[in-house]
């Protein structure tokens, strides 16, 4: 591997880190249109959790970018919780693959602050991301949100995590 290639890979990793952080910030700001633009045209999004009660993994949400767009469009019509969320995300690893793809694993914690100003830990889990693109154009091809938290104060509802 050449020094040039190493530098390119380093830049790609930093872009992916930036994408993961930015996606969290966009969710916290409620900028769902910007968040959605982080997915490529074939982008998929799922939220899964393991149930020890029935000894299997469950998919609580499994949809495409178009499906997400529809859900987010509906959101103003739904009765939703009046609280703010704040993501803290930590990169565990990024693996560069052939053909302009990469995978990334990160841990996240979401805090929630209600209208009275009370803050509590809301959810703990990890992002398993498959990314596509290249310099300046990394996007999520698939984001898998694996939740460790299963007992929620208020359910996530249709608001992405």
């Amino acid at each position, binding site marked *: 591997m050449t020094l040039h290639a190493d530098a390119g890979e380093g830049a790609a990793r930093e872009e992916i880190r930036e994408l993961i952080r930015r996606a969290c910030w966009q969710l916290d700001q409620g900028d769902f249109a910007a968040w959605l633009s982080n997915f490529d045209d074939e982008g998929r999004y799922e939220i899964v959790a393991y149930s020890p009660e029935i000894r299997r993994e469950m998919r609580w949400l499994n949809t495409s970018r178009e499906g997400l767009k*529809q859900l987010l469009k509906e959101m103003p019509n739904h009765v939703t919780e009046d609280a703010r969320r704040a993501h803290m995300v930590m990169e565990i690893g990024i693996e560069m693959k052939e053909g302009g793809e990469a995978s990334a694993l990160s841990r996240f914690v979401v805090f929630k602050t209600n209208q009275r100003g009370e803050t509590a830990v809301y959810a703990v889990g990890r992002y398993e991301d498959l990314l596509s693109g290249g310099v300046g154009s990394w996007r999520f091809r698939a984001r898998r949100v694996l939740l460790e938290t*299963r007992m929620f104060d208020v359910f*996530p509802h249709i608001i992405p995590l």
Partner: protein
Amino acid sequence: MSLIVKTPPRVASTHYLDNRIFTDQSLFEEERHKIFEKVWNFVCHESEVPGPGDYRTVQLAGHPLIITRDRDLQLHAIYNSCPHRGQRIVRKECGTARSLQCFYHLWNFGLDGTLRQVTRPQGYQGVGFDLKDYCIPRVRVDTICGLVFVCLDTETEPLADFLGDVVGHFRETLGSAPMEVFIFHQAVFKTNWKLWNDNNSELYHEYMHYLNRNTNLKGESFFNRTWRMYRNGHNAVAEAEVAYEAGGLDNRDANRLPGTRPNGFSLTNIFPDTVVNCRSTIIRMDRMVPLSPGRTLIEWRGIGIKGEPDEVRAMRERHFTDIWGPCGRNITEDQIATETQWIAMSAGAARHTVLAREENLRPMDDGNLRAYYAEWGRRMGRPAHAPFAGELPR
């Protein structure tokens, strides 16, 4: 002078409730004894204990229980408490075991609760100790259509009699093919258990849900059916056709569950806390574990056909989670509604609930709730509209 309206609504006494039935601690304790400890309670599905040695822990009215299946495939329900020092025997939600061993002093029990051996038995010689005297207490267990029910009372009628004809509403759907739970989630909602039950049982609040305004209420047959009431407080409403596509969801025609019609939606309420909600391709079952007047553990199960192809299972998952589940459109709305309702009630801001809708038992008639609270009153020995009649007002 208090501005809180304490005078009853000017309707028949059957048509309103005193909201203290949702908030009062003494009534809550009474409900545990007079209702939950007396009736048959749905606790899990048979698929949660499918094979020999499988067990599943459940809570019922403050009682920790273990549902087990022995090597002869017989189901048992026993207390999850060691007769020695009261220790919890099983600490996991489910598992498989040849026997149950208390981790504290290693007393060992059969899956039916029989005490098999104790550690260092010589210490009990000379005190008249007999293994037979220290078996884990059993409770009654029975199944119908794969649903496991337990009853803490020895005098209560058999399960089939307790349920009666309401089973007809789900017998074919749940009972004619091997079924399994493939989604399970739970939450502690800050509300009274009956408010969640009411939310499940009344269809007037369909207007609250954006999705249901665009699907359920656009189906031609939604209003063209009636509630049916059964002995012991059970009730059900037959299947209506729902305009799923109008709400941007899949049509529900292919891979329907047995006995359902395309794009259907039916509801069966089993007294006191269980709901069978069927939408053609998927069943959702709710059960409740009342923790305090204002806290309720709610369990949801998504049920489909066992052993079906992956793509069919994926379709059922989607049909369930499009509407329900922690990330679905409706459950959070119901949660917010019932929690804020309880906050207002517990502050004493509203003394009465009005159940006065009469539409010839059409879906938005409150008749099923009136029948439910008549049964509640019968079992509690006090009417739901005046639970403290004759006592000093609170």
